[in-house]
């Protein structure tokens, strides 16, 4: 199932979100036909229980879709919408059609949203006080533009919208960003290795220099660690949206964020900083990493949160804590 899903997601994105189709588009612009194809493929229904008309995957089952979305830097809030639909289904609310983003409170009045231009009919889920609000973007007013590549801050004047119970959207959104980052790191590694093999300086490929090899080995390590962190975060043994565990997501968001930072630095260096232009995929991929690190809590936020959990569990040494809450679990195959 995992491989089948991964393949179909990659095929779809390779067709409709290939780098040459994205070139020249803003981070918030999706190429034509992409959203329709994603909806058609059922990806947005991945985490919705079968009883509610979804596919009924748990986060580990849905992970391949987001890894693929990260790999192609797909400019749509797929993870947001998957999770929002799952959250709405949990609350017994039928979701609006199309995209639903997870909005992050920006002070007490406004909310930060991911790239969404061209989707005025989208909706947002916004935690507010003791409730979660489902709000139409059509009624939102822009406050700040481009707070991160493509992100913007909005405000709703009417404090209306549909009220839902409190949901752990912070952890849910962080999981989606973890998955997208882990996915984006894969082509960053592959492209950087290829570049080092092809680019000739001083009469030989730059990959022939040990200093470059050592850097690429570090990059490889971080990419593998990030992938493992994303897999660990997807084990559905928590009480959050779609069974996510806040503990697992905390560990992953900080570990993958660190990996993303170091990996982006090495990849840009080896690719001769050409990634600062829009000419190479690295630009969009590392831009996506940067946006992901800024959403749903950064490394420091989650490090402190996780540290408090460790301190509060007096029976556990660090290994026992990691085994009990962050261990690799045998996954039941979802088919």
């Amino acid at each position, binding site marked *: 199932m995992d491989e089948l899903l991964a393949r179909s997601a990659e095929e779809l994105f390779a067709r409709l979100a290939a780098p040459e189709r994205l070139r020249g588009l803003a981070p918030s612009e999706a190429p034509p036909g992409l959203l329709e194809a994603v909806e058609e493929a059922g990806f947005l229904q991945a985490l919705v229980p079968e009883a509610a008309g979804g596919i009924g995957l748990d986060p580990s089952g849905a992970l391949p879709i987001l890894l693929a979305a990260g790999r192609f830097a797909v400019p749509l809030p797929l993870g947001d919408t998957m999770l929002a639909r799952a959250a709405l289904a949990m609350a017994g609310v039928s979701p609006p059609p199309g995209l639903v983003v997870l909005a992050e409170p920006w002070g007490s009045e406004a909310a930060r949203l991911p790239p969404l231009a061209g989707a005025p009919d989208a909706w947002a889920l916004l935690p507010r006080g003791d409730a979660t609000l489902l709000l139409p973007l059509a009624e939102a007013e822009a406050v700040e533009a481009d707070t991160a590549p493509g992100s913007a801050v909005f405000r709703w004047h009417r404090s209306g919208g549909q009220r839902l119970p409190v949901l752990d959207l912070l952890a849910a959104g962080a999981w989606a960003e973890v998955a997208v980052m882990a996915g984006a790191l894969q082509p960053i590694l592959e492209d950087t290795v290829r570049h080092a093999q092809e680019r000739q300086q001083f009469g030989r490929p730059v990959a022939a220099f040990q200093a*470059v090899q050592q850097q690429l080995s570090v990059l490889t390590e971080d990419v*593998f660690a990030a992938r493992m962190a994303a897999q660990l975060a997807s084990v559905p043994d928590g009480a959050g949206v779609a069974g996510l565990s806040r503990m697992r997501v905390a560990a992953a968001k*900080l570990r993958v964020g660190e990996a993303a930072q170091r990996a982006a630095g090495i990849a840009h260096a080896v690719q001769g900083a050409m990634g600062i232009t829009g000419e190479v995929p690295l630009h969009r991929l590392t831009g996506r990493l940067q946006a992901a690190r800024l959403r749903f809590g950064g490394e420091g936020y989650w490090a402190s949160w996780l540290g408090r959990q460790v301190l509060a569990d007096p029976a556990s040494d660090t290994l026992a804590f990691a085994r009990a809450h962050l261990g*690799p679990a045998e996954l039941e195959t979802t088919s």
Partner: protein
Amino acid sequence: MIGVLPLAAIPPEDEALRPAIREFLRESVPQIPPERRARSWMGFDAGFSRALAERGWLGLTLPRDHGGAGRGAFARYVLSEELLAAGAPVAAHWIADRQSGPLIQRFGTEAQRRFFLPRICRAEAFFCIGMSEPNTGSDLASVGTRAVREDGGWRLNGAKIWTTNAQHAHYMIALVRTSGAPGDRHKGLSQLIIDLGLPGITINPIRDLAGDAHFAEVVFEDVLLPAEALIGEEGSGWMQVNAELAFERSGPERVLSSAVLLDEWLRWLRQDGAPEAATALLGRLVAHLAVLRAMSVSVTGRLVAGESPVVEAALVKDLGTEFEQAIPALLTPLLAEPGQAVPGGLMRTLAYTAAMAPSFSLRGGTREILRGMIARGMGLR
């Protein structure tokens, strides 16, 4: 390119070993002061190794008819991580249990297995590994210690250095040259099992920064060995040494070398309260630990499946030892806050771990060698 590491879990039948091990460690280890437990797999206590042997916990992976438990690598994984996390003094049997026993099982003759394996399982035969020489470190193929066939046996001359626990071990498995010259590189290298009680052997312990003698120099002067000292095939020493590297490099001993320091610090934070910087660092280290452990378990799963994930193991070791070294480095400024009354045991544990940390990324293959292997795995060389 290297394949993705899948999420793998330790099978329930191997997890089932854990409670008894933890119980045993709760009774036998806490009275050891933390700065001694920090010695981890460098802490030597033959009596402790015998106590483990009495419970059937030595030679878990060796066959039953040679005194082992006939279990798989995951059983040993559970045992190892609990021993290391607790800071149990495992050095006496560590190398025999991890490397020498499996090597003899795999490449030895039936007579060698019958002789050595039961002794290893009873904690009666401790081993060391003779690799480095005064002029041979990372460049292991340049080994110059030489064994020459003579009167149906071998005459051995040369020296090994930085050999862990040579002064306590009964036997050394040494990589030596049995034909050709150092210029022939890995051709002509063989492994010999050397009885360290034989005439002509001088063992000089080397004191380290922490005041211990974990290592020794071992000098061989016309040592006469029987023919059956050869383990495996003559000339196959290089291949045999490399066959076990994935096991040696991906285990919990590449993640937990600073575990005692980390847990002592945690105990103090729980007791006296944790400032924000300490809380954040704790969370960060636990997240790294969890991911490393999952990678290490995953590589073990590939080994159990009969694969030889040497590059993936190199990746785990490099990241793991970076983590082990980061713990004393990052704790140091937090324990330097003016006005704090840090427990003496914690400070001594920090002192020991900080002093020994440079060896974490050296033993078992240097950082640069491992990164070179990863680069090769990625098609870069």
